[in-house]
């Protein structure tokens, strides 16, 4: 009973805010939503509802640092698909589809979106490719019927929704599924001894080519700095006479 957790290495969003240079910040971290997915996988395994958690990511050797972080959290085993191209979500989903066929997990848990690209596509695409049920934007997971089904609470625009999915299924984690643990020192030491398996798309028997290409990246126009008002009266006057919204 294996859980597969795909994760992405992204520029540290906290760093990016401080530096104000979101795409060029040097420090990378596990995508925060994927970190929540890893935490959930660990908890499921700790409850005895899985025998193994396998992490998988795609990238050059530099992402081994984030793989070590996942292993230090407690992931049992990790796979890196060696590919340094700028892949689009569909290419990523197709590679992960090949990994799922090889690993045969009973559930895949991953973040709902990567905070760099903000696409929110891969989990749903993977479910479509595999023909598996999906539960997206999940804030609670329970396994039922001897792990044949999962009951998931989803965060939707209109509020919470509960669905049940037959397993195997894809679950994508929302912000409030859990609070990821901090990495412990013994965890870090243990992580160094855990294996990282490196595979290529060739070895997985999958050929992908990104169909989406980023042509350019630009900063949005800045909003003009506004006016400081000194009192409630002045604010109301401005809203009425200048902005005409009251």
């Amino acid at each position, binding site marked *: 009973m294996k859980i597969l957790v795909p994760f992405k290495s992204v520029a540290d969003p906290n760093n990016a805010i401080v530096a104000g240079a979101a795409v060029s910040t040097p420090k990378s971290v596990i995508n925060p939503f994927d970190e929540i997915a890893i935490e959930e996988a660990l908890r499921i395994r700790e409850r005895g509802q899985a025998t193994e958690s396998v992490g998988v990511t795609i990238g050059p050797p530099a992402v081994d640092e984030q793989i070590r972080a996942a292993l230090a959290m407690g992931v049992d085993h990790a796979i890196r698909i060696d590919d340094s191209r700028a892949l689009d979500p*569909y290419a990523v989903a197709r590679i992960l589809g090949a990994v799922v066929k090889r690993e045969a997990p009973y559930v895949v848990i991953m973040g709902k979106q990567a905070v760099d690209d903000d696409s929110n596509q891969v989990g749903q695409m993977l479910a479509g490719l595999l023909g598996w049920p999906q539960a997206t934007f999940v804030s609670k997971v329970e396994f039922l019927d001897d792990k044949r089904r999962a009951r998931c609470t989803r965060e939707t625009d209109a509020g919470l929704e509960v669905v049940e999915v037959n397993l195997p299924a894809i679950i994508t984690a929302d912000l409030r599924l859990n609070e990821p643990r901090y990495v412990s020192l013994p965890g870090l030491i243990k992580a160094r001894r855990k294996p990282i398996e490196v595979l290529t798309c060739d070895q997985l028997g999958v050929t992908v080519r990104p169909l989406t290409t980023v042509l350019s*990246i630009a900063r949005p126009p800045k909003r003009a700095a506004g006016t400081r008002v000194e009192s409630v009266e002045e604010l109301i006057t401005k809203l009425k006479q200048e*902005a005409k919204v009251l």
Partner: protein
Amino acid sequence: MAESLVLIEHDRQQVKRPSLHAITLARQLGGEYALLVLGHGLDGIAASLVSYGASAVVVADDPGLAEPLADRYATVIAEAAQERGATTLLGTSSTFSKDILPRAAALLDAPMVTDVVAIEKMNGSISYRRPINAGSMFATVKVEGDRRILTVRATAFEPPAANAAPCAIKRFDFDAASLPNGMQFISREERKSDRPELTEARVVVSGGRPLKDKETFERLVGGLADALGGAIGATRAAVDAGMAPNDYQIGQTGKIVAPELYIALGISGAIQHLAGIKDSRVIVAINKDPDAPIFQMATYALVGDLYRIVPQLIESIRRA
């Protein structure tokens, strides 16, 4: 004929208005477009869609589609796109279309672009602009292939006019018996509110961590929203602290709003929150920290104590 197919969302009673904004992008793309609606008991909803200039309103109506389960919806949507030869399948960014359309994209073996805010046409090819990194950057992307799937930011496109001659309503026939059966709908939290829908409201009042607790949040943020006939939003910190429900969260991982008037109470302005409000026409920020980042993008900034200012503001508006 190149055709766009626009997925329309509804709540079983009526069409969700932001989902109509995708029609505006379909018009910009050029060519014909049809509207697609899935569910059960859709006669009224279909009839409300005939005047948007579409070539047809395509209706997939079946008891098996009563709830928007992604495996079934994506299957029917992909079949409809294929049967109609649609080259672009699009919908408005919402948890509904973000759940279903990427799955349909995989079934159609086609790429997808999320959160389109603008298109550029050059030499017959189209590129799409979309926010990345919580809206701190915009990427311009192109896609290859015969078909593409798009979601659009409702706040970036005007609502379409409904003044065209009525089009035909066409029933889309599919094999209901062979629909996937791996997902079951169990329940949905029904929360009734007299306040307008957050993403459609003309005025949004939002609160952050300094609101302290649920009661204070309701009294100040709710009180000001009610005085203005507005909706309520919240920061992640306020939601995490239990002051407001999860679906009130505005920002990168929550809702994107662009009201006429956005009032931020005790919100410092994390980039993830600003990402969700920056297209608002007028932003008012009230915060006791004069260096709060939100003041850099606020139209009107008022430095001071919320607990003193907001009751005054409510009082002045009610009197006016």
